[in-house]
């Protein structure tokens, strides 16, 4: 096809785990190449492993591809193959166009040279001519927004300034294909927003984007297609929502993390005790990561050490900053709970739709009686969960907006 920018056909790439072996294999392969003997790259030798295994995909002009997966899955290796830094050991990589790579930007900066001098060096490495840089240098400096530091050696730069300058040079090199690898994680939020805005502007000019990130919201928001990698293999490929939710469900086991923390100066009588808590999905399966808008159940077991009349069961959900996002209890729902005998164990369920924005949340359940005057038990932050939403949202609540736009006032 005319407009295919990147094409991977059954691409595999192997690496060596052992430094000595790497030296030995290096000499051997080079010697073979010199004498024109094929080095049989498709065979795995001792201490070698496939960092990428039979990966195939295609990226068309103006399209965006996200690559997600756990650390060491081979995401960066894909980018390096596209950039031409690495060559495949099996299969074929076709790249059509100038690649602008934001893989660890600022590589090639010399610490003793000023920002301005480094723009010329880095620009030349990225394939810009001096004329081109002369023309663009003001835009580059303006976008980097590092003020007078542009004339100081880059070794005096903060990490953020370093990245800003590097990013600015890379995006001004007018690539046809932009490779972005987690670099947006550095720098403050304002700069991140600026970067995303700039990348989106570039996308309008019909460039192609490959984005590698652990920020699933960013991937979901920017990419039209997502690849999930694990141990060098493509596990799933498709629409961002599908792949991301598949990834999340496969991650759930790893997120289990119960946090206990103190709960201030309220006197706890321990007349009743919260035994344990779980988050269950609709199918009754225990989960730790929740898709925004999903209906889930907080499930607590409460053991009564004394007999109590009309206890009140409640929960508070806090975000990572400790701000209360939501709170509810049985009393506010006008539920008369009745009398619980000493030794009885009750199961309390809170069923609700989690229309939250993405982030980490903590659940603190409590049991009280006498209209909340006597606190039997209060387990602060006993449960932790993560909410993932495919769209970017800010604030506290997810109001599940639909946006309609009617042109010409119709």
């Amino acid at each position, binding site marked *: 096809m005319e407009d295919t920018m990147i094409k991977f056909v059954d691409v595999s790439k192997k690496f060596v785990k052992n430094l000595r072996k790497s030296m030995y294999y290096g000499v051997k392969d080079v010697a073979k190449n010199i004498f024109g003997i094929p080095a049989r790259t498709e065979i795995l030798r001792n201490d070698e492993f496939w960092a990428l295994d039979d990966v195939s995909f295609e990226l068309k002009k103006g399209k965006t591809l996200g690559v997600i997966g756990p650390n060491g899955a081979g995401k960066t290796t894909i980018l390096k193959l596209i950039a031409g830094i690495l*060559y495949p050991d099996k299969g074929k990589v076709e790249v059509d166009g100038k690649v602008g790579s934001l893989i660890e930007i600022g590589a090639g900066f*010399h610490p003793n040279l000023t920002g301005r001098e480094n723009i010329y060096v880095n620009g*030349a490495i990225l394939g810009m001519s001096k004329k081109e840089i002369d023309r663009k240098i003001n835009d580059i400096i303006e976008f980097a927004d590092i003020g007078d530091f542009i004339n100081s050696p880059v070794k005096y730069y903060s990490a953020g300034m370093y990245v800003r300058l590097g990013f600015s040079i890379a995006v001004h090199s007018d690539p046809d294909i932009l490779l972005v690898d987690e670099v947006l994680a550095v720098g403050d939020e304002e700069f991140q927003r600026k970067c995303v805005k700039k990348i989106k502007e570039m996308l309008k000019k019909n460039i192609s984007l490959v984005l590698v990130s652990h920020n699933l919201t960013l991937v979901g928001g920017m990419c039209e297609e997502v690849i999930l990698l694990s141990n060098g293999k493509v596990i799933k490929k498709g629409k961002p929502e599908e792949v991301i939710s598949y990834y999340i469900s496969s991650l759930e086991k790893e997120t289990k993390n119960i946090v206990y923390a103190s709960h201030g100066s309220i006197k706890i009588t321990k007349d009743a005790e919260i035994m344990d808590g779980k988050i269950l999905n609709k199918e009754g399966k225990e989960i730790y990561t929740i898709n925004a808008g999903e209906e889930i159940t907080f499930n607590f077991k409460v053991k009564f050490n004394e007999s109590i009349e009309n206890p009140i069961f409640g929960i508070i959900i806090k975000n990572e900053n400790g701000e209360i996002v939501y709170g509810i209890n049985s009393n506010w729902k006008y539920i008369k709970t009745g009398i619980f005998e000493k030794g009885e164990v009750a199961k309390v369920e809170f069923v609700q739709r989690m229309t939250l924005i993405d982030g980490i949340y903590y659940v603190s359940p409590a049991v009280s009686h006498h209209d909340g005057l006597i606190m039997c038990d209060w387990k602060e932050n006993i449960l932790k969960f993560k909410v993932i939403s495919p769209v970017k949202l800010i604030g506290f609540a997810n109001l599940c907006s639909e946006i309609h736009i009617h042109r010409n006032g119709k």
Partner: protein
Amino acid sequence: MTIIGLKNIIKLMKKVLIPEGLVKKGFLKNFKEMFDEIIQARELIIRLFIRDFLARYKQSFLGITWIIIMPIIVINSFIFMNKSGILNIGNTSVPYPVFALLGLTIYQIFSTGLVATTNSLVNAGSMIIKINFPKESLIISSMAHSIFDFIIRVFLLILVFIFFKVVPSYKSIIFPFLIIPLVLLTIGLGFILSLLNCIARDTTNAVSLLTSFLLFITPVLYPEPKGILKIFTKYNIISPLINAPREIVINGYISKPDEYIIASLISIFIFLFCWRIFHLVEPKIAERV
């Protein structure tokens, strides 16, 4: 610009990477590609040269005077050893300091060039694993430093010529052309040694040892020897490559043109052969560096 022109550019940019793709390509096609790559990378080579140049002298008080300090010390110690009779250098047609400094200046194109090129890939390690660019540019820009140093040392040389009232032959104008084989030999060896250095860091040490050893077994600081040393110098291709340009400046003729021509041809062959190997191995550098 016409649409056809634009299409051509796009066609040029298309890259297909397959395992050992370069090995499978034809011999001549490879050489054409190699030349094209260097020409395309000329601006990068200049930038890298400027970068390293600025970086080298920015945080230094003496700056480029360091370039001439080393030859001055070496020559003085030889003069001292000669005068005190520890070392008998024999007769030279011009005052010894002129003879020795001229030889050393030429030799240092080779020695500083070899050390710089050998380390060039390893020093750029972080850049190589993150960015794709023609790695030949690193070797060539390193060699350019050696040539720059040479030019600075020529000024020292001119001062020494004036001081000893030695008038160089008018044929000295071909001097710059006569050192080309030595430059090519250095780049050629630099290609291979820089690759070796990526695999084993022993190369750095071996090369600095080699260059100081070669200085003693090559007639640089002494005229053509007799006896046991002669066997060493006979098969040493660096020796005619240094002697011929020196003779042109001092005497106006080359005493053994046949040796010089053979050495030059060998140098050109080594250069092309090593360049080709470098080009074949280039895609693997990022994995091993």
